[in-house]
């Protein structure tokens, strides 16, 4: 059942890719790890879950998760980042850590700490492609990831806003003398990144059919590993590293047992930090956010 495992790993990896992109949008521009992204992902998942069980269609659930997460991202930027932007890099990072713990607490209070389950009738369809079984939601996750990565790549590579984002990331002062408001673009990066995390959360929650307030910690930290492994400078890094880690993880569990599941991912991350800190595909060192 190797092929089946590969497909499962690919689905998981797709979500890692989305979330890694979400981290690297902020990381690449500000040089800080917005740790709260993991919890935006979790809350996006809950929002999507809630909307689906309330009878709304999937697109509404995705939009709801996206907008909810983006709104919280705006609050984090305004309260947790903006006032600290001239402080040493570790300061805003600690403030996002504070935010993530608060968000987890809020989620526990609203939705409880027991796993929420999605009734079986949602997205339960299975398609058989030869020897592989692909779930309806699995397909949706894969297609949505490809579409979202393409949209993000288009925005970053081809639009004036994306160029301005890259300009701020490369040299904040040069961006400013070209008329780019670094503050506005910073906010935009937070919004884009939050939206992406929210969508990823809805997708994975519906795919698993279950969610807990700890989803963010579990998957978010792995997405950071994926970002490190792929490098932050190019979108393609996350696109390659996500599936790689997803598949590696699924295969480890299948053949090595779940007690070693995280060894491979984080071991690989440490290896990359030691041997190739700029990430597999090159680019800026993701452990050294430059304050540009």
């Amino acid at each position: 059942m190797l092929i089946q495992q590969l497909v499962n790993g690919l689905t998981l990896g797709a979500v890692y890719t989305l979330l890694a992109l979400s981290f690297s949008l902020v990381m690449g521009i500000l040089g800080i790890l917005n740790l709260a992204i993991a919890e935006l992902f979790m809350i996006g998942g809950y929002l999507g879950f809630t909307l689906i069980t309330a009878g709304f269609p999937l697109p509404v659930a995705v939009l709801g998760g996206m907008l909810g997460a983006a709104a919280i991202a705006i609050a984090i930027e305004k309260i947790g980042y903006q006032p600290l932007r001239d402080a040493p890099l570790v300061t805003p990072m600690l403030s996002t850590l504070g935010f993530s713990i608060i968000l987890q607490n809020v989620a526990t209070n609203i939705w409880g700490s027991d796993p929420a389950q999605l009734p079986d009738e949602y997205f339960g369809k299975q398609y058989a492609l030869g020897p592989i079984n692909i779930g309806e939601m699995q397909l949706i996750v894969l297609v949505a990831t490809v579409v979202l990565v393409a949209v993000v790549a288009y925005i970053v590579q081809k639009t004036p806003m994306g160029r301005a984002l890259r300009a701020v990331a490369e040299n904040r002062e040069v961006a400013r003398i070209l008329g780019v408001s670094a503050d506005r673009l910073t906010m935009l990066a937070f919004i884009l990144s939050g939206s992406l995390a929210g969508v990823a959360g809805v997708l994975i929650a519906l795919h698993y059919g279950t969610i807990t307030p700890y989803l963010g910690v579990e998957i978010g930290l792995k997405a950071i590993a994926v970002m490190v492994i792929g490098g932050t400078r190019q979108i393609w890094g996350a696109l390659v590293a996500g599936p790689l880690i997803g598949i590696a993880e699924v295969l480890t569990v299948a053949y090595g047992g779940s007690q070693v599941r995280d060894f491979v991912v984080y071991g690989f991350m440490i290896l990359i930090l030691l041997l190739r800190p700029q990430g597999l595909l090159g680019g800026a060192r993701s452990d050294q956010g430059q304050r540009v």
Partner: protein
Amino acid sequence: MLTIKGLEVRYGAITAVRGVDLEIRKGEIVALLGANGAGKSTIARSIAGLLPFQGEIAFEGERLTPGTAEKNLRRGIALVPEGRGILARMTVHENLLMGIYTRSDKSAAMADVDKMLERFPILGKRRDGLASLLSGGEQQMLAIGRALLSKPKLLLLDEPSLGLAPLMTASLFSMIAQFRDEGLTVLLVEQKARQTLKIVDRAYLLETGRVVTSGSAEALINDPTLSEAFLGGTH
């Protein structure tokens, strides 16, 4: 067009500029001369809105607030910074597109980008290559072209000849001299006083943050203060 009165700029405990008065009239090319560390870049960067300052900088009769670089560009002040400020991870074309970031007449602006690629054929040839792969002179062309694309009224050039070969410097200076015909006003920051004085209308000589001499280019080229302090003896 630009009036500076009692400009004072500090970096922590260091006072880099102390009480500078300076005036640039519309259509002039004015030089800001001085040795390394005299405070030339600090003045240019203050005008561009990159630094906090004390004193007064007024552009077209309006007082500028310190540190508002994005706004200053929209008012018509463009800076080509020392070291050129090329966005190395972008292509030549993308760098030029950043030059029209603030323009609202998008289709005319896109046409201007294409014209810029024709005006500097080297850039046209390297359109889709990374800007970091250009030579120093080509990067300077790119930086100036990019600044011109914002359609500035006042162009601030901070040591554009730095690191260029003599031939390249000569062609750069003759290009700057032609900006006058395009109705552009220029503040040219330079250390190469002799060459600079040949193309500018007036100049200010700066020493440790103060203006020590100023006047028309013809007067200054024979000024003993300038020759001794700066040109390294007269001929």
